[in-house]
């Protein structure tokens, strides 16, 4: 059913925006390579399940592997200033997509097709919905915890956070590991749901779209990323004619919101 398909897609977007919000919205580390981790989770599930491994273990491996690469990027981020971090994450996205394209086993430009969908047409959307609710719960738990407070302190001022004893290095890396791991899980769900994945599905434009959803909605909040995923994602789904103008609209919207309401539509001024 079309409505279910759209809703499932939007839930996957929501997992992605909430996970990006942990890194960028709460911990203040800009990431323009989030689609790469989504792709890592998707490709792990694609490769493993088409080689006869059941979905559940493949899904977990995808999440863990994405988190592993998140650990790597997080460790790199410790050495970089803000601007450099943004460039490094763009670079990471390109390297990962190039790896999907050029390494054997990943199917080149054709990607991987025939990925099996567990739980049937009715059960799988429920799994996606349950995962989304789980991520919402996790997001709120983290936001209210010491971890969330530590992230927000280093977002506001790293120097001040360090001065009051926050272990900046450890918390930055934790943000990357948790955010990218969740993006990997979203990728696994996407691969099994769509059945066909290609390298370009996980490119830089998707990273920009995700950052746009989070930033336009309102970074650091719960409703901002959710509204970004559902409103911006749903807008594109609801009006097919928009598809041709999707990128220019996202781009302009991003510029306009940053210019006139930098805290996002649902965000509060810090």
């Amino acid at each position, binding site marked *: 059913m079309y409505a279910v398909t759209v809703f499932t897609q939007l839930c996957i977007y929501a997992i992605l925006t909430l996970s990006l919000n942990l890194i960028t919205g709460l911990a203040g580390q800009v990431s323009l390579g989030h689609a790469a981790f989504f792709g890592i989770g998707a490709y792990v599930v694609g490769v493993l399940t088409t080689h006869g491994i059941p979905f559940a273990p493949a899904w977990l491996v995808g999440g863990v592997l994405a988190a592993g690469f998140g650990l790597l990027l997080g460790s790199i981020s410790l050495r970089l200033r803000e601007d450099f971090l943004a460039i490094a994450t*763009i670079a990471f996205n390109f390297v990962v997509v*190039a790896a999907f394209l050029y390494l054997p086993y990943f199917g080149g430009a054709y990607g991987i097709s025939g990925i099996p969908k567990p739980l049937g047409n009715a059960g799988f959307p429920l799994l996606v919905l349950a995962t989304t609710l789980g991520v919402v719960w996790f997001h709120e738990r983290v936001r209210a915890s010491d971890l969330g407070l530590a992230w927000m302190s280093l977002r506001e001022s790293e120097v001040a956070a360090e001065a009051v004893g926050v272990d900046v290095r450890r918390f930055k890396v934790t943000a990357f590991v948790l955010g990218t791991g969740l993006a990997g899980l979203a990728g696994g769900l996407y691969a099994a749901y769509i059945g066909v994945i290609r390298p370009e599905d996980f490119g830089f434009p998707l990273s*920009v779209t995700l950052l746009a959803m989070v930033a336009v909605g309102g970074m650091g909040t719960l409703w901002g990323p959710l509204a970004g995923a559902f409103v911006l994602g749903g807008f594109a789904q609801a009006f097919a004619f928009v598809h041709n103008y999707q990128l220019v609209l996202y781009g302009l919207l*991003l*510029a306009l*919101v*940053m*210019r006139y309401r930098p805290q996002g539509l649902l965000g509060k001024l810090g």
Partner: protein
Amino acid sequence: MDWQTLSALAADGLAVGSLYALTAFGLTLVYGLLRVLHVAHAGVYAAGAYAGWLAFRGGGGLGWALLAGAGCAVALGLVLEWWFYRPLQGRSPLVALIGSIGLFVAVGDLLRILFGPYQHSLPVLPPRTVVGPVSLPQVVVVAATAGLFLVVYGIATRTPLGVGWRAIAQDAEMAAAVGVPLPRYTQLAFALASALAGVAGVLVGVYYNQVYPTMGAVPAYKALAVVVLGGLGSPWGTVAAGLLLGVVESVAVAYLGNRFPPEGVAFLAMMLVLLFRPQGLLTAEPQG
């Protein structure tokens, strides 16, 4: 490898590297003054290329195409500075960076909607050879770049404007306090950066005989890589890094063929530089 092949690769590498340097120079200049990564610079470059193509289609030669490209790029660059970057000064650089990416995406996609998603050819120069393996477009690109950078060098070293830019880059507040007109000098920096990017866009179109909507994408990321390799905020390091990347890429593609994606390799190199020499390959001291 024989002399003929080697010089052909060097000529191609120098030409491509010149184009990288022209594009990346503006990025470094703007970063030095505003501490903002002007990602939309690549949109300015693509818009310049299209303006050059329109001028050519309207019957102009290379000169008119370059003039139109530079003019359109300067206009767009100044509008972006006035509407976007200036009001966001003093906010978190993240805000300008994110919005700038939006602007870049919007400009590229607008070009696609206006002029179609396909390539347009720009056959201004016949690709005939001049000396040995060196072709006419290569000579034009390298000569134009060298001429432009000579002018830029003159501005940077011999005019109050150049001194002012260096003062702002070191300490904007102090520069303003001693009478450097910040807004006007910033505008002039955007004008120069955009003019170079517009010329680069037209020259890229001429060199590869094509302009297309997403042509800003690869140089956008490559210019970022070049800027990092040269040391962010170090203009002449950027020029050297651009030339170096062009030559290395051209040789690497000749040897490795299509087994490795050039973009992937460029970015892998960049990530290694970020990790081990974050101040850039050529700068001696870490940048503030």
